[in-house]
């Protein structure tokens, strides 16, 4: 029996971008306000889960050809890389530093190496959540 999910699919095309935007906002906002890599990654996987609900597994896999297990590995490399990188400046493991840089449009911004560590957490959370959901949802 064929179903017609036109309302759900149209709403999903709009709302998943909003959820993704909210996730990116909460990820970059985590330094000063509540948020960070963990909840940002969970919200991004929530947007992907909404796509999986409205469409099906094969369509989402064609639209986003991402292997989430490799994504988890890349995230761990980011997290360990920021720790090991402090060895090159003869500092202890996981020492973080920051600096003020000037950008053409945005003005002066504070950039920290904590953001790279947070990016690792973000990728690991997305990879783990999506691997669990795809593995459970795929069995027939």
């Amino acid at each position, binding site marked *: 029996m064929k179903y017609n999910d036109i309302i*759900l699919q149209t709403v999903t095309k709009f709302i998943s971008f909003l959820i993704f935007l909210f996730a990116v906002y909460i990820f970059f906002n985590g330094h000063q306000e509540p948020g960070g890599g963990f909840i940002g990654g969970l*919200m991004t996987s929530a947007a992907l889960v909404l796509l999986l609900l409205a469409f099906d597994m094969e369509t989402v896999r064609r639209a986003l050809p991402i292997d989430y297990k490799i994504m988890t590995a890349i995230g761990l490399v980011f997290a360990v890389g920021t720790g090991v990188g402090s060895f090159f400046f003869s500092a202890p493991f996981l020492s973080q530093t920051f600096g003020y840089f000037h950008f053409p449009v945005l003005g002066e911004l504070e950039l920290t190496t904590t953001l790279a560590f947070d990016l690792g957490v973000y990728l690991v959370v997305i990879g783990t959540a999506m691997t669990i959901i795809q593995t459970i949802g795929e069995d027939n």
Partner: protein
Amino acid sequence: MVLNAIYITAATLVSISILLTLYRVFKGPSMPDRVIALDVIGIQLISVTALFCIILNTSAFIEVMLLLAILAFIGTVAFAKYIEKGVVIEHDRDR
């Protein structure tokens, strides 16, 4: 001080309406009744969070409200799809 009493009264009223909605969750004869009641409880939790933001005079919980709205929507869609089709995530819908 009087304004704060008004907000606490409003939070109490929303809490009472959460309790009344919980009656539908426990009693509701069919599954869709319970799903709708849980969605309504999610929306009421958003309003309680907003009221406590005002009472505690902080803006730290603004993201919590958006988060609750998103999670209530996704949860309701997942429950509705389970009731309708029996599966939450299909493998290939054109097959």
